[in-house]
């Protein structure tokens, strides 16, 4: 496809690709972590004695959600610096 008026170089596309990889990749985990922490705070408010258990599980859950963002970040770093 020919895009009129614009000449886009390969290097420019590379950076757009890297930015999109991390930008879209961070969207889902961001939502996930938000929901997770929100629910954990609700649970803490209802049952403050269970704080250690809730916090440990919350951090584990965050780590799972965050891993997805990290995959996106690794892809973005690879696109930006390696290829």
């Amino acid at each position, binding site marked *: 496809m020919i895009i009129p008026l614009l000449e886009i170089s390969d290097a420019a596309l590379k950076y757009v690709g890297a930015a999109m990889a991390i930008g879209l990749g961070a969207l889902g985990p961001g939502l996930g972590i938000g929901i997770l922490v929100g629910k954990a705070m609700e649970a803490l408010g209802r049952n403050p004695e269970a704080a250690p258990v809730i916090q440990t599980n919350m*951090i*584990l859950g965050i780590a799972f959600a965050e891993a997805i963002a990290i*995959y996106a970040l690794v892809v973005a770093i690879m696109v930006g610096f390696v290829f």
Partner: protein
Amino acid sequence: MKRLLILGGVAYTVVTIGLTIFVLKPPQPIIEIKGEPLIHVADFGNEMLNFNITNTLLTAWIATALLIVISLVAVRRRKLVPTGFYNAFEAVIELLYDFVTGIAGEKNGRRFFPLVATLLIYIAFANWLSLTPIFNTFGVFEPVHAEEEKFHESAVVFKDSGGIHLINPGAGFVEFEVADCASGEEGDACREHAIETAASEKTGEGEELGVLIPYLRGINTDLMTPASFALVSVLTIQWWGIRSLGFFGYAGKFINFSSPINFFVGLLESVAEFAKLVSFSFRLFGNMLAGEILLLVMTFLIALCSPLLVIFYGLELFVGLIQAFVFAALTLVFAMGAVTSHDEHEHGEEAAHSEAAAH
């Protein structure tokens, strides 16, 4: 007073950024993802088989040695009533032991404790060690090559004085114009030409273009280290699973012909084992690499000590500990999953429910 302090901090940050960009002009950081070889030990002609001592491997050895020395010093004078350093050491171990037995129970906890605690202590120690300022600063100088495998698209101007090299704030920085170079022999010639033109423009007497290979680099910024942690962790989990359930009992989790649904559940479980390897290694690697790049970029942006840097440094301290904790805790949780059989798992949950009701 508080407002004045914040205003002062902001003003100081702006001034330091301005000074860095307009006066000091540091070179841009050159980011390397693979561990860089310091000593070539054995060369088999294949990049996968070559054995090199990389800077991350050297750092891993140093971290191991330091941890051994610290533990030996701590337990040198054992007392019934602990004091001083030994007391702190014991408190850390006890905290970890309580954490492990709290999740896994007394019997399994004693079995899992050595691996889980080692992973946590070693990863956290190595992550924190890599935040000391001697990391990524001094190392050996490597001139740029035109060959494709080792080609860097940018380089720093070094004074060729031999010995240990540092990147000075005023060091020149070159980006080669190689965007339209073809691959293969022609590309090499094109790169060679780009390097020569850049060298003739930027370097003076006794100066050379090259990149710095630091002696010390955070061990988890090289994918190989987290991948080996993950291999150790996942393989040990399999071993624990086989020891607890017997070979056929454990294999029954993955290969199950009792019903079509169970068969597919087994397939998913086997895929999940390999997914554990990937997620373990990439989580740690991605976090630590991103942290290192963040700190590097910030230091090269604001070359003087600034509140901004302190904030990111604190963030990295936190991330280093949390990632070590997550690695160890996930190992523990997966190990618990491996040593409980399917029926036992349901019973265990019921028991937990009744226990909670009793409380």
